[in-house]
């Protein structure tokens, strides 16, 4: 671990440095020999923003063009046929949702100006007037109802992988008279508004029905602030401002989304002034960017939590004392500081701080090797040899985190632990086949929950009916079922808080950390990173 404060910054150091970051630089450092591309075929050449810009001292009247470099390119342009945040980030520029979230995760209006619960399992959204698609057609309630049905109902012709994201919703109907949409759920569905604020982009029914699925994957027709002008599959998507957008005019006139899988390539692009925003900056590269002239680091707690799953179907993980011992064994703060350079927050329950259902009563387990050894003796599993399975490269520092955690467990005198690195595909196939028997007994996994609600983590993972359940307990089952039928928000939150307390006490998982989203931002833009990992270019302003 570096000891020179100039060499190490981490999350806490970042906060100190952030205020001192240079406010802006001229384009001189990021512009190339612009003349070489000042030809009619400029847009054809795409990429490498430096070639398309002209050096100037006063940039205020110049078109404000931004470039965003993610780790992966959009796998499709079909808003309902993917599961990736990177794809969502591209599509968000052009498609709207019914509701949206602000940077802090609060539900705010978007295409709907008003929303209300009519009765259990029935909510209504009153839609904004005068919204048009990029092809000029007006948004209708039918379009919104169709988009929701396209996610939840395979009869529309798509088996959407986002179906669970609108959990409980079964149908949607247009109400032309009221310019509204009625959305129906199976049961109360207290999550209805929350789901709609996090998922389901709205496309035009007639436009979609006129096209094959493959065409929807390569074209865009949304109501969002930017309309697509060029798409090179796997390479880049270029947008320009949609002049008839219903919202406040964004600062950025044009934006290009591109990808560089190698983190070093993303960092180099930012340092060379070729891009304005890069994602997933490795912690070790954060000081380089922060100390350089080209940009700064923006870090924010994400909606993703990492944990070690205990498979209750396999010994010794069927024993709560043994499970608790693993939590006591690990020095979480040290892992966060040394492996993640501070870019993480320790957790002691599955629900993140700020989420509905989170309880402040539960702290992360303290590190206490003596207590851990005593609990292992008490469990009757002393001398056990366990293996921690971890995916490789799926999450920030996953292997290093797993090795550190296994190291702490292995340091105990009465248990040994080794790490087995796994290809995510083969690990996932074992976890997802619906049987605990084929899953590893002990594995690291990450889970993103952008609904800001405890249920979307606890239900699938920690209740007996959950499809990726590896631990359950009757009280938690009961409380979560009650929470699903509880219309009083406070009472519902308390039921989920009870679940979190029990899950923590029973050590359903070895709790690790909340992952941080770490961005590199050029000096040309100002932007506050969002907790939900979404990049909304309309929030960029000129520095």
């Amino acid at each position, binding site marked *: 671990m570096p000891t020179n404060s100039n060499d190490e910054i981490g999350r806490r150091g970042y906060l100190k440095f952030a205020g001192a970051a240079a406010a802006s630089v001229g384009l001189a450092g990021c512009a190339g020999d612009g003349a070489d591309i000042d*030809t009619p075929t400029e847009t*054809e050449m795409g990429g490498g923003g430096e070639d398309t810009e002209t050096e100037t001292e006063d940039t205020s009247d110049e078109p404000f063009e931004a470039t965003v470099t993610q780790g992966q390119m959009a796998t499709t342009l079909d808003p309902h046929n993917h599961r990736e945040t990177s794809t969502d980030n591209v599509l968000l520029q052009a498609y709207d949702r019914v509701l949206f979230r602000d940077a802090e995760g609060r539900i705010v209006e978007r295409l709907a100006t008003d929303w209300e619960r009519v009765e259990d399992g029935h909510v209504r959204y009153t839609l904004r007037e005068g919204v048009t698609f990029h092809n000029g057609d007006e948004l209708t309630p039918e379009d919104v109802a169709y988009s929701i049905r396209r996610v939840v109902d395979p009869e529309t012709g798509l088996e959407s992988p986002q179906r669970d994201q609108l959990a409980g919703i079964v149908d949607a109907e247009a109400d032309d008279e009221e310019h509204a949409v009625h959305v129906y759920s199976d049961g109360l569905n207290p999550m209805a508004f929350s789901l709609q604020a996090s998922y389901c982009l709205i496309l035009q029914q007639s436009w979609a029905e006129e096209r094959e699925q493959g065409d929807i994957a390569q074209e865009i027709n949304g109501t969002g602030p930017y309309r697509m002008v060029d798409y090179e599959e796997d390479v880049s998507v270029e947008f320009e401002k949609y002049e008839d957008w219903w919202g406040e005019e964004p600062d950025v006139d044009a934006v290009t989304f591109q990808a560089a899988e190698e983190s070093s390539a993303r960092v180099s692009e930012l340092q060379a002034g070729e891009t304005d925003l890069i994602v997933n900056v490795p912690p070790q590269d954060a000081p380089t960017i922060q100390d350089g002239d080209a940009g700064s680091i923006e870090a924010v707690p994400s909606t993703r939590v990492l944990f070690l799953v205990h498979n209750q179907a396999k010994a010794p993980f069927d024993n709560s004392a043994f499970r608790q011992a693993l939590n006591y064994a690990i020095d979480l703060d040290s892992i966060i500081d040394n492996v993640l350079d501070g870019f993480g927050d320790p957790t002691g329950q599955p629900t993140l701080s700020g989420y509905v259902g989170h309880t402040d009563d539960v702290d992360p387990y303290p590190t206490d090797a003596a207590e851990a050894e005593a609990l292992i003796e008490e469990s009757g599993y002393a001398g056990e040899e366990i293996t921690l399975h971890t995916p490789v490269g799926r999450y920030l520092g996953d292997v290093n985190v797993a090795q550190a955690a296994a190291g702490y467990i292995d340091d105990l005198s009465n248990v040994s632990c080794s790490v087995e690195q796994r290809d995510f595909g083969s690990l996932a196939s074992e976890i997802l086949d619906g049987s605990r028997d084929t899953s590893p007994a002990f594995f690291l996994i990450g889970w993103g929950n952008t609904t800001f609600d405890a249920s979307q983590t606890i239900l699938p993972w920690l209740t007996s009916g959950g499809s990726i359940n590896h631990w359950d307990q009757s009280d938690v089952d009961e409380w979560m079922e009650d929470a699903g039928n509880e219309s009083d928000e406070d009472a519902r939150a308390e039921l989920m808080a009870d679940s979190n307390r029990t899950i923590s006490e029973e050590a359903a998982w070895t709790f690790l950390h909340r992952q941080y989203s770490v961005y590199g931002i050029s000096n040309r833009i100002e932007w506050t990173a969002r907790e939900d990992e979404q990049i909304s270019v309309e929030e960029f302003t000129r520095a």
Partner: protein
Amino acid sequence: MSLAKFLVRRSLQGLFVIWGVVTAVFMLRFVTPGSPVDFVAPLDASPELRARIAAELGLDQPMYIQYLDYLWGLLQLDMGYSYISSTPAAARVFARLPATIELAVAATVVAIVFSIPLGVISATNRHEPADYAATGFSLVGISTPNFWLGIMLVLLVSVQLGWFPTGRRAIGFWPAVQLIWQEGTLAGIVVWLRYITLPAITLGTYFTALITRLTRSGMLDELGKEYVRAARAKGLPETLVRYKHALRNTLIPIITILGLQLGTLIGGAVITEAVFTWPGLGTLVIDAINSRDWPIIQGSLIVIGAGFVIVNTIVDGLYAYINPQVVYE
């Protein structure tokens, strides 16, 4: 046997090789752990939903049906649809091919332009400073890992000096050439050169070093032969002896290696492509493997295999041009 007959025979053999590649790649899917459904379905998808997705992707059919369907599709240049993006696999694979070919050819050009003169200089100045310098360069070139060289070039030449972009491919070679005809401007070619220079140097350095050594040893071998002594005794100018006689005979093994390497480069530039974000087949294959997108994996490997066969068939044909003593049998 005439050259034409030889090429026809080699092409037929090549078709069998490609069929073998198709079959092997197809079978790989059935022995590789992890189902494509895991990547397409939600993490908490029910078994019913997973079964529906499998049916939609055609994965519920018996293996031989899937194989015959795939072969029939290939005959119509239909490689199926990407499991992830639902777009035609053939279109995605062929869209990446020009970038891959450009990079492979550019790296080969770098290798030829630098290595052959270096090898000749080294051989004709044996045990002199020029020889030591060339030998030293080839040793360093062979020992330097691609990824390290690429990252160093980016950090030094792009980030620090700002001479070249850090990566990507702003324009293809063919559109750049079209610009010359249509617009009368070299701007496209200049941009193309700026973007391809560092990746080509990175990818070509190893081959430059390798061929430098081959040229040196080949030239030393040839220069020691009787016919060279006879040519010199006849009073032929030394340049003619070296370049018309000795070098020409040295070229046969060099062309063989270049052909093999070019074939390898078509599918093997993964690291260079990743470092420079070069949108070629290598990164497409890696992405597809990571997401178990089998139509893309199969399509890419078939194209790479076909490229290898075609390049080596051309190389075999070139032997006769280089050395008329070669007889096709």
